[in-house]
């Protein structure tokens, strides 16, 4: 399905992302997809600190954090926010998602 100039891309089921955060590659671009109590979030593979490949880092599912493999900076699953009050590296770049019929789509 097309939304404006972007296409919807089916990346996984809600159950998949509930089991584990997912890494999806859409049009050769990588995203990390996570689930919170309220929503599904997809983030681009670019750490806002120094541009590191955040989708290749660790995820801490106990504390709902995504951790960049370049320098260890961490971001909350929800809204991709840095949990600390820093002026740089504040938030992961988010990709729009659609959840329909228990399936997750990324708009790209």
């Amino acid at each position, binding site marked *: 399905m097309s939304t404006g100039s972007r296409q919807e891309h089916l990346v996984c089921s809600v159950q998949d992302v509930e089991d584990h955060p997912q890494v999806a590659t859409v049009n050769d671009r990588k995203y990390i997809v996570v689930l919170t109590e309220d929503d599904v979030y997809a983030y681009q593979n670019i750490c806002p600190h120094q541009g590191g490949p955040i989708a290749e*880092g660790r995820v801490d599912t106990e504390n709902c954090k995504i951790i960049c493999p370049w320098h260890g900076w961490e971001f909350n699953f929800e809204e991709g926010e840095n949990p600390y009050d*820093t002026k740089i590296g504040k938030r992961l770049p988010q990709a729009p998602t659609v959840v329909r019929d228990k399936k997750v789509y990324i708009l790209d």
Partner: protein
Amino acid sequence: MVKCMSKQAEPAPSQADVLEKGWPEKEERIDQEVIDCDAHIRESVDDLLKYMDDTEEKAYVKSDYFQYPKDGWDRSAGGRAGYADVSGPEAEMEIMEQLGLDTSIITPTANLYHGLLGNKDVANELARAYNRYLMDVWLDDHDIFKGMVFVPVQDPDVGAEEIEKYGDNDDIVGVFLNPVGPEKGLGDERYEPIYEAASKHDLTVGLHGAATTHSTFPLQTNYFHKFLEVHAISHPFQQMAQITSIICRGIPERYDLRFVSMEAGIGWVPYIYRLDKEFLARPNEAPHLDRLPSEVWNDKFWIVSQPMEETIPDGTIDGLAQMAGGWDNLLFATDWPHWDFDAPSVVKKTLPNEHWSKVYHENAREAYPKI
């Protein structure tokens, strides 16, 4: 086309499971020349053994008894941050391509701890072997690499001999000096053969610290609990200690030299002005100085920005740069493959754009004229 895979959840990742740093799809490219003033390699004992003479020191280094001093601190922060290697020139060139680097000044990793070797004869042999390895493997066939002569702080005369040996080589741009482990501050007269030889060959002296573990001049790091504490203080403190010694003993005033402070960032720089205050009250204790320490600093020292303190409050970076001797004195370095490396884009994110060219390459050519 869509591909999807599960992301392994690891609230307590295994240390044995080393996470690689990886690469983003699109590293932010820098549209101008970039000179990396601190490009580490991971030289192994096996690499160096090939370049050691057949002496009893070589037999010792080859034996199970020998190991390079290591600090043992956890760079991965419990498996959170990745590990990267530079196994040889091909790997370094690939990294330079990824990061958009044009020239790299090659620096060691294991030999950051060379100053802690107690056996002077082994220290000398390893320094000689490292310089042979540096020339043969890295510099002789690769114009994009530049190097620094490694000198053993345990034996400054051997350091001077090494500088004599390689100092006129076109690819040698400086001298690499360990601030960690020397018996006295680097302004002590015992180190003057190194400065004399460096001056004779117009080489820049780079001071590059290390974290260390235990009671080692100039910092007793076992006082601290975690690597966060050790790493935050070790590099800047080593620079403060050795630059205090070098300036107060008048080394830059007596030898025509340039110095570079490496891998300590710029946040500690206001300390230099404390030195001015002390000097004004007791100039008789620094008889070789006819001007303020900060004037010597501004005139003779350059400073590598990595690890950039991009977290400092808005509006303060310009003041820090001025205290570092002005925007002409700031150099860029990646420090790759070490854990706290800087991508070149950090300059654009942190510093005013009118200074980018200076920091990316112009200042490096002033600090290291042979580049």
